[in-house]
């Protein structure tokens, strides 16, 4: 991947995750969790803005963050399927957050230690946020997994449902062992079974091949900008 595509991919992960998570606003089971999820969505949006702005600079074609976020078709997005999947119930949302933030934290850490100064700055800022997102997701995974029979069953089914999408993030890097070292102890402590390897492992997001869910998400994300180009508050 070129620098542009790599930064665009990470920016798209953050942007799509932000939009998806923001759908919980005013819908979480208690006000405190509502604020927590919205905060995490805002962190993702902040990282997305920095990454997309920088991706536009790397591309050198005059596209800014808005052009990249609002004026691309679904096939031009490079985010992971994991980021675009529907929220499902709260357990599915938590499983997605756990898996995605563990990956994002390690990627941002890599950027923070890299040679590109601007990316190092963005990574250094975002790694702290991802660490918190991961902590929050781990807290809930534990609570739900090691909770009642009902919460355990739903958390396990969420982990089973989302697990196949956790291979795609590592198609172009060697971060999976480190990721497993983060995620497996959380699942074990939550008395959840870590799904076996070798099953279905969908991918394609990085090449622009997405689930149908992304198109609906983008329609909502982009409609205002496309209807009123250049509109501002």
């Amino acid at each position, binding site marked *: 991947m070129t620098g542009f595509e790599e930064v665009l991919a990470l920016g798209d992960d953050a942007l799509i995750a932000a939009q998806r998570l923001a759908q919980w606003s005013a819908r979480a*089971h208690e006000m*405190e969790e509502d604020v927590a999820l919205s905060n995490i969505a805002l962190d993702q949006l902040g990282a997305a803005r920095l990454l997309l702005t920088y991706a536009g600079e790397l591309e050198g074609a005059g596209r800014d963050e808005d052009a990249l976020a609002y004026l691309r078709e679904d096939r031009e997005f490079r985010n992971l399927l994991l980021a675009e999947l529907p929220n499902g119930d709260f357990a599915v949302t938590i499983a997605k957050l756990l898996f995605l933030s563990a990956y994002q934290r390690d990627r941002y850490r890599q950027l923070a230690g890299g040679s590109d100064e601007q990316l190092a700055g963005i990574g250094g800022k975002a790694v702290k946020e991802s660490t918190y997102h991961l902590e929050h997701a781990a807290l809930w995974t534990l609570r739900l997994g090691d909770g009642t029979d009902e919460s355990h069953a739903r958390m396990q089914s969420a982990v089973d449902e989302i697990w196949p999408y956790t291979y795609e993030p590592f198609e172009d890097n060697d971060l999976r062992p480190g990721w497993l070292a983060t995620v497996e102890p959380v699942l074990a402590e939550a008395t959840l079974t870590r799904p076996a390897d070798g099953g279905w492992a969908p991918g394609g997001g990085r090449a622009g091949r997405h689930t149908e869910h992304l198109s609906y998400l983008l329609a909502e994300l982009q409609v205002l900008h496309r209807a009123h180009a250049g509109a501002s508050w």
Partner: protein
Amino acid sequence: MTGTTPLWEVFVRPRRGLSHVHVGSLHAPDAATALHNARDVYTRRQEGVSIWVVPAAEITASSPDEKDAFFDPAADKVYRHPTFYHVPEGVKHL
């Protein structure tokens, strides 16, 4: 869920050197979650550097009914204030 999870009182220290100040309360199932929630609800605009959460049920409070007995006797004891000293010139930070 809110109806069943306990209430926690939140104290935030705004800066190093200042003491923790009560900022409000929230619901959470346990202390770790309460701390997380407090971080999100009360310090998302850089309000603090340290947070305490205390189960609201553990706080013993003075009763409004006892207000007179508790606080009124202090009202006319001016000699309890250090106002009968002359502060020498040049003493700072007093």
